[in-house]
């Protein structure tokens, strides 16, 4: 009689937890990718911890506070490491709805990840999307701060240059007027022939077509 009951129970368990079964989720772990040399082996003790974490998550859901570790069933454990799990109700006859399990896992995802030293990418619950972390936006975008600094420097430097230019201009204007009072004016006559000025400075080495020139050419001033 006891043997019959035992077979019945295991048969029901086997039916409840099946790949692609109703309310079953596939879990995939990439321990070696996450931890490299410090990777641990996946054995039945780790499976027990996993069942405990799932039961813990389900206990946080209202109306499911009586979930036990034995209610979480694992099956099809592969070398990848991947497996399927379901959570049954206390009577162990049917599985809890997928929506409840999804929301419970999402709420406690961080605790489950930390228990295994993994993260959202290395401990994957297929069909349970994880809430992405909100980006940390500083109150003032950084580029505006740096832009403000650079712009202020540029404005200040431009003002300084313009002011020094005005000061130089004023000094030049005052200078010649003093000289005019003290000395005689030297008439600087520009000799003209046929309307073309005879430029005493032969600074331009090239031959300029004087027939075409009607205004005096000056060097580009600094």
């Amino acid at each position: 009689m006891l043997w019959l009951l035992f077979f019945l129970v295991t048969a029901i368990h086997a039916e409840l937890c099946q790949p692609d079964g109703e309310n079953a989720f596939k879990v995939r772990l990439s321990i070696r990718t996450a931890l490299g040399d410090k990777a641990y082996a996946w054995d039945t003790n780790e499976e027990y911890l996993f069942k405990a974490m799932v039961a813990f998550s389900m206990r946080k859901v209202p109306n499911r506070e009586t979930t036990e570790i034995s209610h979480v069933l694992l099956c099809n454990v592969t070398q990848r490491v991947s497996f399927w799990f379901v959570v049954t109700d206390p009577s162990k006859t049917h599985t809890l709805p997928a929506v409840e399990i999804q929301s419970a896992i999402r709420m406690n995802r961080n605790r489950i990840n930390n228990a295994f030293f993994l993260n959202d990418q290395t401990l994957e619950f297929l069909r349970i999307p994880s809430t992405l972390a909100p980006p940390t936006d500083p109150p003032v975008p950084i580029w505006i701060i740096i832009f403000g600094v650079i712009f202020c420097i540029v404005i200040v430097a431009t003002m300084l240059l313009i002011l020094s230019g005005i000061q130089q201009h004023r000094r030049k204007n005052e200078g010649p007027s003093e000289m005019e009072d003290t000395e005689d004016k030297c008439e600087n006559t520009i000799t003209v022939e046929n309307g073309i000025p005879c430029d005493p400075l032969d600074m331009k080495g090239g031959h300029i077509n004087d027939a075409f020139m009607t205004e005096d050419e000056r060097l580009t001033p600094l």
Partner: protein
Amino acid sequence: MAISPYLGGVGLGCLIVSFLVSLYYNTILTWVLWYLLNSFQHPLPWSACPLDLNRTGLVEECWDSSAVSYFWYRQTLNITADISDSGSVQWQLLVCLAASWAVLYLCVIRGIETTGKAIYFTALFPYLVLTIFLIRGLTLPGATEGLVYLFTPDMQVLRNPRVWLDAATQIFFSLSLAFGGHIAFASYNPPRNNCERDAVAIALVNSMTSLYASIAVFSVLGFKAANDHGRCLDGNILRLINAFDLPDQSISRDDYAAVLARLNTSRPEWAAGLHLDTCRLEDFLEKSAAGTGLAFIVFAEAVLHMPGAPGWAVLFFGMLFTLGLSSMFGNMESVITPLLDLGVMPRGVPKELLTGLACLVCFVSATCFTLQSGSYWLEIFDHYAASLNLILFAFFEVVGVIYVYGMKRFCDDIAWMTGRRPGLYWQVTWKVVSPLLLLTIFVAYISLLASTPPSYKAWNPQYEQFPSRQEKPYPGWVQAICVLLSFLPALSVPAVALVQLLARRRRKQQDVQQDVGPKLQDGGVC
């Protein structure tokens, strides 16, 4: 004007072309400045896609393309899908445009006085950064593949004449010929200057710098290609492992090919059902783009994978900014110096005011590039405003100096300046080779433009093959603007020649009338 007033239109045309070029060139500087300002944070803003509204996934446009492309097309340009759809002015770009024009004004405020000091920094800093990038790039994995790709000639590609045409135009614009910038800067030299040595030095330094920069760039691109290839392989390996439930990390990148071959023979239908990508290193190497795509997408992504990414990003975009700034000095000189020489402003007006007005006018005109369709317009300006006109002006300059002014007089001038007459090489190239080459390039360019209808590549998220860019033809009014840009500056040559002809004729009539009338006075006494 000193050579022949009929060719005065060349100078005026150079002024117009320099004005158009400085408009769009400073917009590129604006983009560089925007990226530079955004590089001072970790993680870099183009490293990850932003989340969508209910925080369950990434923004769809970003998911389909890539985080770097999304940052460039959406968060920087906010680009529209069509050139006729102008959109609104992007305020962040407008602010950066104002800043870059302010920096430029600061450097050219007193002309060569301030430019000469600023250029010590803007010319030397890029060399320093290039050296740093070269050393860093050569130590990255995958750099050797990039360099091998750079230096192995591809015979198939070299047989295409279009490639040679592109190379000729590239060296022409790289040396900034016919912009008027060289002439403007050279006018500040003492009259007895060894211009032959300067010319050779400019050409040599330009080519050496291009080679140096390409070695640095291609070593980083090789690193990026190797990185992408590795990630492609990793994606395939993960898919294999997940499908066959093999232990984690059991297939390394080297074993992948062997394992795939074994699977293909034993279970071919499974391997086909996995949708594995073909990962070839050559495909990733060939993806390197040119122009804005190279700097803002390819290189920005490459910088992401280097350790200490924000520092490298700051260095790279700082180098680009100083490079662009020094080019803008040349452009602004060739705009401001002719205005000064023509005596446009009355004499009492200080130089600072003239440069300020020039910068203000350019800034206001360039705001059209900060519209959402601005980058499409920039491509138009880049392709059509400068190319044909400069080739034409260079042709007129060479012909004007050698044939109108006279080869003998020109050689005498050079002998006076440098102490010896130019050799046979110079004389042959001036008389024959250069005009012929320029004419050939001009004709080839025009025939190329005329044969293919001009089109552009638009960024359209609704396109079926997104993220590929959608090829669209230009609407009629845009094509008219392209033609206008190509020929308006060049028209100044015949226009000025015509004006001069009419002026001379009127003056000759006046002189004839004066001779006939009574002689009131002799000419002045010398």
